[in-house]
Each structure stands twice: as C-alpha cells, then as structure tokens.
C-alpha cells in the first residue's frame, strides 16, 4: 500500500472522529440546556462522580503531597532551600497535581463506568427503548453526566488540594523538622487565589472531558460484550490523553505571561 495514502487515510479518519466528537458534545449540551431536565439523574450522577470518588481522590492526594514534600526536601536541601517546601507543595497541588491526578483517577473510575453502562444500554437496546418512550437519550443519559462531572470535579479537586497540602504538612512536621505554625504560614504567604482558581477551571474542563469520552464511547459502542470492553478502554485512554493535552493548553493560557 502507498505509505502516503495510508497517512492521508489516517489523518482523514482522525479528523472525522474529532468532528463526530465535537458534534456529539455540541448536540448534548444544546439539547440538555433546552430541557426537559432530569434532576434525579443529575443528582444521581453528582453522587456517583463526586461522593463515591472521594476515597480514591483523597488517597491519591495525600500520598502525592507526602511524596512531594519528601522529594522536594531531598532535592532542595542541596541548595539550602528547604524553606521553599511548603510553597512547592501548595503550588504544585493547587495548580497542577490536584486537577490532573483527580482528573486521571476519575477518568479511570467514572469514565470507564459511564462507557460500560451506556455501552451495555446500547447493545441491550435500552437506549432504543428510551427513544420509544419519547425520552431523548442525549437529555436523559448524556447531559446529566456532563453537567455532574463539570460541577463535581472542581469540588473533588478542592478537597484534593486540602488533603495534598495536609500530606505535605504531616511529612514536613513529623519527619523533616518543620514547625506546624511556620509551615502553615509559609503555605498561606505564597498562595494566591489565582493558583486555586486556575486549578478549579482545569478541573471543570477535565470533568467535561471525562464524561464526554465515557458517554461518546459508550453511546457508540457496537458488537456485544467485546464492543463494550473496547469502548471502556477507549474512554479511559482517550480521556487521559485529552486531559494531559488540555492541561498543557490551559497552563499556557493561565501562566504564560
């Protein structure tokens, strides 16, 4: 086969997928905003995404904060710059690690579940059944998940920020010889509202990405159990890649001044 044709076909296929995804997202948001709304569905998804993700996000955050403090100490002590540890921990957590790690953990937990649930509904004709009951699947299934993820990811990240800083605080005060008051003061002194806000905006975008990829892959799954499995894998992989890509682009927008 002609290698140029292969490259061309791959590029066209990629463009087609991006186009489908964009239209799917636009359709879901526009239909969802027009209503009717399904508050029970939205609430159920908020509990599923927010409340049930707390343990995994919390554990990730506390160990990340602890490792961050430990690593920073071993590196920074070479330059007598240990005092910067509280600042390093809080800025890393709020700007970067909180949203990215929470996004990736939620992609693994919630994005996969969404793809599996919608994929199963597709192959067992439950989505067709919704349509015959004059209920729009985009409004009933997709929009509540998108909205709940956009609302709950920032809350999860806020909790992750606090727990991550707590992890750094525990290691620094119990192991590295920092005084508790001194650590807290140094944390607060160099923290600006912009640091937290940028992380929360990132979290909302990551939430949208996770729910979108979970819903898109599940909604379009075909071919029984194998199709549902493939949709689940694709949802997690594509959401993770898009989160990391979006993270760079958002960081450019927020901090490249």
């Amino acid at each position: 086969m002609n290698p140029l044709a292969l490259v061309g076909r791959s590029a066209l296929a990629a463009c087609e997928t991006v186009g489908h995804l964009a239209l799917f997202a636009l359709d879901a948001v526009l239909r969802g905003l027009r209503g009717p709304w399904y508050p029970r569905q939205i609430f159920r998804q908020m509990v599923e995404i927010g409340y049930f993700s707390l343990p995994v996000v919390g554990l990730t955050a506390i160990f990340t904060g602890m490792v961050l403090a430990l690593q920073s100490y071993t590196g920074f002590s070479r330059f007598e710059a240990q005092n910067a540890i509280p600042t390093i921990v809080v800025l890393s957590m709020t700007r970067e690690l909180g949203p990215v790690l929470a996004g990736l953990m939620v992609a693994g937990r919630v994005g996969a579940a969404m793809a599996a649930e919608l994929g199963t509904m597709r192959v067992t004709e439950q989505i067709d059944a919704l349509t015959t009951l004059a209920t729009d699947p985009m409004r009933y299934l997709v929009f509540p998940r998108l909205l709940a993820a956009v609302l709950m990811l920032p809350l999860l990240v806020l909790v992750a920020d606090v727990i991550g800083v707590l992890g750094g605080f525990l290691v620094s005060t119990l192991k590295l010889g920092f005084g508790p008051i001194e650590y807290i003061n140094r944390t607060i002194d160099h923290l600006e509202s912009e640091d937290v806000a940028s992380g929360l905006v990132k979290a909302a975008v990551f939430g949208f990405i996770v729910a979108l990829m979970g819903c898109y892959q599940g909604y379009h799954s075909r071919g029984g159990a194998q199709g549902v499995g493939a949709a689940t894998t694709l949802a997690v992989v594509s959401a993770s890649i898009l989160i990391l890509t979006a993270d760079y682009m958002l960081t450019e927008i927020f901090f490249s001044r």
Partner: protein
Amino acid sequence: MNGTAPKIRIRGLEKRFGGKEVLRGLDLDVPAGRSLVVIGGSGTGKSVLLKCILGILPADGGSIQVDGEEVVGANDATLNRIRLKFGMLFQGSALFDSLPVWENVAFGLLARRLANRRTAKEIAIRTLARVGLGPDVADLWPAELSGGMQKRVGLARAIATEPEILFFDEPTTGLDPITADVINELIRRSVRKLGATALSITHDMASVRKIADRVAMLYDGRIIWEGPVGAIDRSGNPYVDQFIHGRADGPIRVLQLAELDEAPGTAAG
C-alpha cells in the same frame, strides 16, 4: 382490509447499511385496530423495519406515514409526538437495569409527567397485575427476574401508557413453549383490551397463529405475501410454505446443503 385508512402506511421503504441493501422498496399497510405479524428469516430486516417506523433508524428512501403523518425526514419534535402513540416490547425486554421494576413500568408516565411518583407506582402495580405479576415484583430489580418475568414486565411497560399502537419484536424468543404461550396470550389480551393496532415480528409460527389477524412475509427486502392468518397454510407461495414448515430445502437458500455434502473433506453420509 376494511377500506378505512391504514394506521401505518409504508411505501417504497429503503434502508441500506454500507453497501448492503436490507429493505428494497418495501410496501406495507397496518390496518387500524388489527394485529399484523411480519414473518421472515433471521437477518431479513424485520427489526430494521420496526426501527425505521419509530424513527430510531433513518430510512434511506420511501415513505412511512403514521395516521397520515410522515416519519421519514421528520424533525425531532414531530418524531417525539408520533412516538407518544407507540408502546414496544423488545426482543431482550430492554428493561432499564438502574431502575426497579415499577419505575420501568411507569417510565413513560413519569417521563411525560402524566402522573406523580406515588400515582405512577399505583398504576405500575395495577399494570403488573394485568400481566400476571404481583405487587411484590414492583420493588425488585430487573436482574432479579427470570426471562419470562422480564418479558411480562416489558409488556407491562409497553401497555402502561395505553398506546394506540403496540410493537412486539420477537416476543417469544428464548422462552420455553409454555412461557411463550403465556406471553402470546397476554399480548392477545392486551391488544384486544386496549383496542390497539399491533405490529409484531417473529419467526415463531405458534406465536403467529396465536396473535395475528393478518400475516405478511418479508423476504429479500420486500413483502412477498400478505393475507389473513387463516390463509397462511394455503398461500400458494413457495417461500411462505417453506418458511412455515421450517424446511431447509426450497427457494429460500440459507445453507447450500448439497454443496456442503460435496465439499472437499466432507464425508458423505
């Protein structure tokens, strides 16, 4: 046919999947208040026909009218209005796993805001009774039910909003003969009680004889025979004869048995 306008009128319906033509200019009338069963082999496009009528799959050509209103090319609002006339029992029941039985049955009532949750549950329990299920089933989850019970819940969901038109997609597939007969009887009673128009697709001849007023046979993307159920045994159509008697030999070539015998490495019997 009684001369009145059909409830569903299909002309020249075409549907393709890639290069494969599934429906090739299908014509069919479903008379109001009657039960029409479409028979045909697996993969002949029976389910595709139902989904095209409901607007779940867009037709590639032709016309589908429900009470004179065009489905092909209709916008979402029109399609949703038309769908309010329908109830459907799916092949695999298609119950919503995430909802208890009563919410499955009452889904149409709640979605259309025809009742509050308390009233909807009462209606659901009454509808479950009509398909022979007790109130104890109402709070169970679909996964806790047997295949036959799931079909009955699916039927209850289809009739709960008292629709004008009922669709049954392979209603007895996967059921033992006795349970299948129970489902057929429930379908017959439900359609009669509602005075609804029914369109069923099946390849179960026991089901056809029990629930059909009229029968149509789908083959090669078109309706090749249609008539009253009583006339099916003397249709004079070799395709219908082969199908209703379940013979491998005949004009419908599913598997070339003679060629299989002659294939290299196949021992002659």
